[in-house]
């Protein structure tokens, strides 16, 4: 599918990407991938008792986005937000504990995998309702503008979310008020089992930005650096008062829509297409690039793996050993004091 991409080469000589940023992206992608893999392994123990949507294969989008954001910027996610939660700097222990329904979870066990939240990391809302957080991201951008802050706000959503009316309403208002928001569409071509061609008249998400007088670009969502560059441009525009941008990042989900398994046997996706995407693994691609550029060697690669795995192991242990919320918490927190 490379051919239907706007640009295929990630690097511009003009404005090189800092090595640290690239190393960070690599590390975050490995962290996300290994976390999802660990969840996939452990889910069968049936101790994580909530619907769980893994993002394996799509890591470059969340990481490319967050690489371009500051710690105090806002992001809004979906039910598939493990990646964005971790990329934005959410605490892994708290995330794991949330999946295990423990009181030490990021939502004290009340939100589960679909509603991860990390106010301190800037993830203000992840919603189980498709499209639900898109206008909310615009609202956060409005808050930023009203307070004359330098922050930006990012809406992270899937291809099907653009079919919801609120997407259209949010795009229009964001552009009307020139708000500092980035619409990051993670186009993995599917809504559960339904291909985009059965849901959308045209496969042209990024082009629809024109309806709102907004710049829109399409990038290879499996190339972290390409995503990052588009984000960097959009963020500069937003911070300098230039208003919102739409980025369509095309990528692919490796596992089933919801749950820990793979589901080729359901054959709603073309196996060759799937294979093609998997050979274009976002992590391997960045790995190769860093290796070629001699920015990463075997020892570093191994170190990253070691660190990440022990972090995950620690998080799982923390989650499993944490207590469940006390019965008294059932009726607590319905209203804010």
């Amino acid at each position: 599918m490379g051919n239907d991409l706007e640009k295929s080469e990630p690097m511009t000589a003009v404005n090189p990407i800092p090595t640290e940023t690239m190393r960070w992206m690599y590390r975050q992608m490995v962290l996300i991938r290994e976390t999802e893999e660990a969840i996939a392994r452990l889910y069968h123990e049936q101790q994580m008792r909530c619907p769980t949507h893994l993002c394996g294969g799509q890591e470059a989008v969340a990481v490319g986005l967050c690489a371009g954001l500051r710690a105090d910027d806002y992001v809004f996610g979906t039910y598939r937000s493990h990646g964005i939660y971790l990329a934005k700097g959410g605490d892994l222990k708290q995330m794991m504990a949330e999946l295990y329904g423990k009181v030490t979870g990021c939502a004290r066990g009340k939100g589960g995998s679909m509603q991860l939240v990390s106010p301190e990391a800037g993830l203000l809302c992840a919603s189980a309702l498709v499209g639900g957080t898109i206008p909310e991201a615009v609202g956060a951008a409005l808050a930023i503008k009203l307070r004359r802050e330098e922050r930006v706000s990012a809406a992270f959503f899937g291809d099907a979310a653009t079919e919801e009316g609120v997407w259209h309403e949010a795009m229009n208002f964001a552009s009307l008020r020139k708000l500092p928001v980035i619409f990051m569409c993670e186009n993995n071509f599917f809504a559960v089992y339904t291909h985009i061609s059965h849901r959308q008249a045209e496969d042209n998400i990024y082009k629809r930005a024109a309806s709102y007088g907004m710049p829109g670009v399409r990038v290879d969502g499996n190339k972290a650096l390409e995503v990052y560059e588009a984000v960097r441009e959009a963020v500069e525009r937003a911070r300098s008062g230039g208003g919102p941008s739409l980025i369509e990042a095309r990528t692919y989900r490796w596992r089933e829509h919801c749950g820990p398994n793979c589901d080729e046997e359901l054959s709603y996706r073309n196996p060759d297409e799937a294979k093609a995407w998997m050979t274009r693994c976002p992590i391997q691609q960045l790995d190769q690039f860093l290796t070629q550029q001699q920015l990463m060697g075997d020892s570093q690669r191994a170190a990253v793996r070691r660190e990440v795995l022990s972090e995950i192991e620690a998080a799982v242990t923390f989650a499993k050993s944490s207590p469940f919320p006390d019965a008294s918490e059932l009726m607590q927190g319905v209203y804010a004091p």
Partner: protein
Amino acid sequence: MNRNITYYQALNEAIRQMMETDSRVFLFGEGVPDPKAIFGSTAGLQERFGPERVFDMPLSEAGMTGVAVGAALAGMRPVMTHQRIDFTLLAMDQIVNHAAKRCYTSGGRQAVPLTIRSIIGRGWGQGSQHSQSLHAMYAHVPGLKVVMPVTPYDAKGLLIASVEDNNPVMFIEHRWLYGVTGHVPEEIYRVPLGQANIFREGSDLTIVAVSYMTLEAFRAAETLAKFGINAEVVDVRTLRPLDETTILESVRKTGRLMVADTGWGTVGFSAEIVARVAEKLHGQLKSAPIRIGLPDCPTPTTPALADLYYPRAVHIAAAARAMLGLAAEELPETPTPVQLDVPDKSFTGPF
């Protein structure tokens, strides 16, 4: 000093004072800055605070409610207006699935300090899509607060309390109340959410009333007084959280319950009041409770049918007499001569 102003002026003053004292408060909605200024309740505010903090919006109820929720999550205190509560149905996903859930589902770590003003009403052929009274749907949802002020005093005090509240509040006004006058202090004050108000003391029966129906109930009570019947009128003011204590106390005292609601009875707010009393005061009612509300059909536009659709003081009074076992009797219709689909100028307070 006893200053009488109108309901819309009281709302206007509340918003102005909130915006003056708290830079996080902003106001938006269809028609907010326009010449009609939401029945005058937003008049002058854009001039006063500028188009950044006070603005109109695209016809995007769902999206703009989401914008408000997002701004609230980011630390602002938005006040949003809908010209009719019917329009809030477009925003139900944001209100019920999002705003109402955020605090609980974040383990109490987040708050959505959001006030959503909307308007119910009656009269002038508004019809089935422009005159519904849908507060029951919101009063059903934990995580939301639902407020329906009747007097100018409460309009200001409850709006200030709503804007200062850290939760999503459905603040529901009634078209026929904007012209009502009453005493309103100039300074900032609060009427706490969750407290009902004994609008009129009485001993023979309790009429629990919602929004504008409080005035019809009050008028009915005055009529009943002429027959030596002393009705207590309880203005619910806040439907959620509900002030069960005040309501139960009143019913315990009078032993009789009538509920006068602006909405439909079936699976409505009036059902909750009757159910609470049945559960908590079993065997203490001297007669069967009565619900006065809209008949179980949509609103017809023709005045010929709309006049039959909306319950008024006469119906409340007649029902009260029946409840007390008094013979049916031709009760004086007020106002007379009758033009029932416009507010009664002779009945605008001060309340």
